[in-house]
Structures are given as structure tokens and as C-alpha cells.
């Protein structure tokens, strides 16, 4: 009530009243933004973890150039990179339940989680493969000469070096994933952007202010990761292992 009358007055009066009004709006939307941020944080974290594990496995398999598997996973990556995330989300949300298979009758949370993880995996797989390829051939040859087999070479010699190279592009992907969680709002996941939309229903005149506040929260979350990416790039020696897009 108080916010409403203030909102009406702020068009006429300026200065202190406007500041007071924005403070009021901020105080009343803060709990929503916090709930939204916590949700965004968890979704992004879980999707990053699951997507990285999946992508890591695919990347390692692809780096070994096993004839059929290599092409198959290559197709998987191209399909995921060739379509917008929004379309993938719709496919997981609408098409999967339509198959009539019991296991695929997903809730919106599951569809969101699966689509984001699968999307993440396509980027991680490319990075892991490029990083493994970037380890000099001599490392393989020396390890073979010492009598190691393929898996010990991978685990003990190549991967420890490759993962270091993968850190900068991986953190770049993480920024991308955090930003993509905003798209999940269209299927009703109550993350940050969705919470903002709910707040806007209460304060329809302050759309710009509320979206600005949401953008600020995303910025506070993403910018440190972005800075870390830059720092890691310099640290690793400026070698961009893979072109992100």
C-alpha cells in the first residue's frame, strides 16, 4: 500500500521522494532477489558439475580417436552447438515427455537441469579434447618407452598437464552457463530472472529499476569468474587452448 501511493507520487515530486521510493522497492524485492539468486547459484553449480563430468568423459574418449565413437560424439557436439539453448530447452521440456516413455516424463526442474548439463558437456568435451591434444607427443612416446600402457599414460602423464591448460577456457564456459540459467525462466524455473518478473508484477512502474537490480546481481556473480578467466589465461601463458564459440 505504502509503496503504491509513493509510486504514484514520485511522478510528480522529485528528489528525496524518488530516492525514498526506490529504497522502498529495493527493500521489498530484496527477499525475492535473494531466493532467485540462491536458486540460480544452485542450478548453475549442479549443471556445471554434471556437465563437466559428462563433457570430460566425452572429451577423453574423443581424444583417443576411437573410430566410430569419435565421429558419433563429434555429431553430438555439433548438434548441441548448432542449435540455440532455448530450442534445446524446449526439446527437453516438450518433446521428451511426448515420446510416451515413462522415464522421460520430466518435471520442469529436471528438464532444465538435464538440458543445461548436456549443453555444458558439449563445450567441456571440446576443451578437454583440445587440451589433451595440446600436450606434446613426446610425453606419450616417453611414457610408452617407460613401459606404461594407454590408461596409466592418460591418468598419470597427460591429464595432469592437460587439465592445467583447460582451466582458462573452462572458467569462460562457466560464465556462459551462469548467464544461460536466465533462459530457464521461460519454463517457469523460479531463478533470478523469474523472481524479478514476479517482483515486476507487484511494482509494474519500476520495470527498469528491477531489471537493473537483477543485472547487477548477475554481474556480481559473473564478473569475478570473468576476471579469474583473464588471470588464468595470463598464468597459463596466454595459450587459448580452444576458441570458445
Amino acid at each position, binding site marked *: 500500500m505504502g509503496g503504491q501511493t509513493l509510486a504514484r507520487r514520485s511522478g510528480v515530486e522529485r528528489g528525496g521522494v524518488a530516492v525514498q521510493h526506490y529504497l522502498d522497492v529495493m527493500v521489498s524485492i530484496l527477499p525475492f532477489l535473494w531466493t532467485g539468486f540462491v536458486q540460480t547459484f544452485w542450478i548453475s553449480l549442479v549443471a556445471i558439475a554434471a556437465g563437466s563430468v559428462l563433457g570430460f568423459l566425452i572429451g577423453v574418449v574423443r581424444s583417443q580417436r576411437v573410430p566410430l565413437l569419435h565421429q558419433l560424439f563429434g555429431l553430438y557436439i*555439433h*548438434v548441441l*552447438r*548448432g*542449435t*540455440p*539453448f*532455448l*530450442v*534445446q530447452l*524446449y*526439446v527437453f521440456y*516438450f*518433446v521428451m515427455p*511426448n515420446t510416451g516413455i515413462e522415464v522421460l516424463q520430466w518435471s520442469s526442474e529436471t528438464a532444465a537441469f538435464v538440458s543445461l548439463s548436456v549443453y555444458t558437456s558439449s563445450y567441456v568435451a571440446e576443451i578437454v579434447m583440445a587440451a589433451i591434444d595440446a600436450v606434446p607427443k613426446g610425453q606419450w612416446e616417453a611414457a610408452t618407452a617407460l613401459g606404461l600402457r594407454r590408461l596409466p599414460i592418460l591418468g598419470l602423464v597427460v591429464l595432469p598437464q592437460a587439465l592445467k591448460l583447460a582451466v582458462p577456457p573452462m572458467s569462460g564456459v562457466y*560464465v556462459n552457463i551462469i*548467464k*544461460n*540459467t*536466465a*533462459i530457464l*525462466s*521461460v519454463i517457469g524455473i523460479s531463478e533470478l*530472472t523469474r523472481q524479478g518478473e514476479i517482483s515486476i508484477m507487484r511494482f509494474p512502474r519500476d*520495470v*527498469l529499476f528491477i*531489471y*537493473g537490480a*537483477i*543485472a547487477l546481481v*548477475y*554481474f556480481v556473480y*559473473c*564478473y569475478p569468474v*570473468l576476471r579469474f578467466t583473464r588471470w588464468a589465461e595470463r598464468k597459463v601463458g596466454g595459450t587459448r587452448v580452444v*576458441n570458445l*564459440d
Partner: protein
Amino acid sequence: MNWVLDFYNYRIVEQYLGRFAEGLENTLIAAAVSLGAAVILGTMLALCRMSSRAILWRPAAGYAAFILATPLLVQIYLIYYGLPALIPAAGRWSELTLGIIALSLHNAAYMGEIVRGGIASVPRGQIEGGKAVGMSYLQRLRYIVLPQAFANTLPPLLGQTAVLIKDTSLLSIIAVFDFLSAGLLLNSERVRPNESFLTIALGYLAIYVVMLSLSWAVKRWLAGPAWNVGA
């Protein structure tokens, strides 16, 4: 053949071909216009970014950080709802126009990074050589830096263009009738998710394949196959 029609009834898609074409047209218009605008804005942003004057590079760096660290969807909302509040006339602009503005402003930051990388890749000696023969800043830019930067910029620029085309799908959320909206329309009228979303996915994949072949062709055209093998 019955199971094919059960899973994917192409006759329904045929009925909607006109709507899909209409959507595709809007998608391509949005992508083309915002690509052009983003390259121009991005080049200016890159030049500001590389300037030694704080009044030029600080705002440019801040702008790039803001764009890179916030979701495109939120930026689209900010432009779609926010611009009419700042410029009253913008309230009468179409969703497509506002969407194009948002996409241009978003991609300008990415294009700026790409152009900056391209300019930084031009060896310093080239610029010093230009200075030594008495060229002005603009002449050095026009005859020495930009032509070389262009060649180093084109491959990542094509990659970003592919991303830009995919990003236009977000305009469906602010009621632009793009390619994705045509599928959403089919789904809401016929309740056939397979026909609508799989068709869209295939359409975007087709565009992606075209972009991929284009980028291979450009890589070959720029330096010839020998250079690519040598790298």
C-alpha cells in the same frame, strides 16, 4: 509409414511452411542488421579500448564488462522495457526494432573484443614503419592496421556470427515473430511438439552447417591451404 507420421507428421509442417518462412525472414533480418551494427559499434569500442586516454578506455572497458557479465535475456528485457522509459518515442517502435537494438548492443562488446584481438595481432613494427614514412593516425589505421587486423578478425567474427544467429531465438520471448515463434505457433495450434521443435532444431542446424562451411571456405581463402597446414 504410419509410425513415421505418428512421430513426425510432415504434412502438418507443410501447412505451416509459410509461417516458418516468415519467421526465418525475421530471424535473418535481425541477425544481419545487428551484425552490421555490432561490427561498426565494436570497432569504435575497440579503438576506444586501446586508447591511452582514460576518458575513452574506461567507459569502453566498463561497458564490455557489463555486457560480458550479464545474461543476454536480461539485456533484452532492459532494452525492451527500459528504452521506452528513456526515449518516449521508443514506445512506438516494433519489437523487432527493439530486439535488434538489444542484439547490436550485446554483440558490439563481443565484436569489440574480437577486433581488439585482431588489431593487437598486428606487429608494432608495422605501425612504427607507418609513422616513419609520415602517415597520420587515420592513414595508419586505414592502410596498415585495419587490413591486417581484418584477416586475423574474420574467422572469430564468423564464429561470433553463428552465435548471434542462435541468440536471435531469444527475441521470441519479447514477441518478435522469428523462426522459433513459428514453431511455437504450430505447437500452440496443433499441440504437436515433435513437428514444431524438431523442425526448428533442424532449421537452426542447417543455418549452422552453412556458417561452418563458410568459415572453412574463408580460412582457406584468407591464407591458402599451405598456411593452415603449417600452423
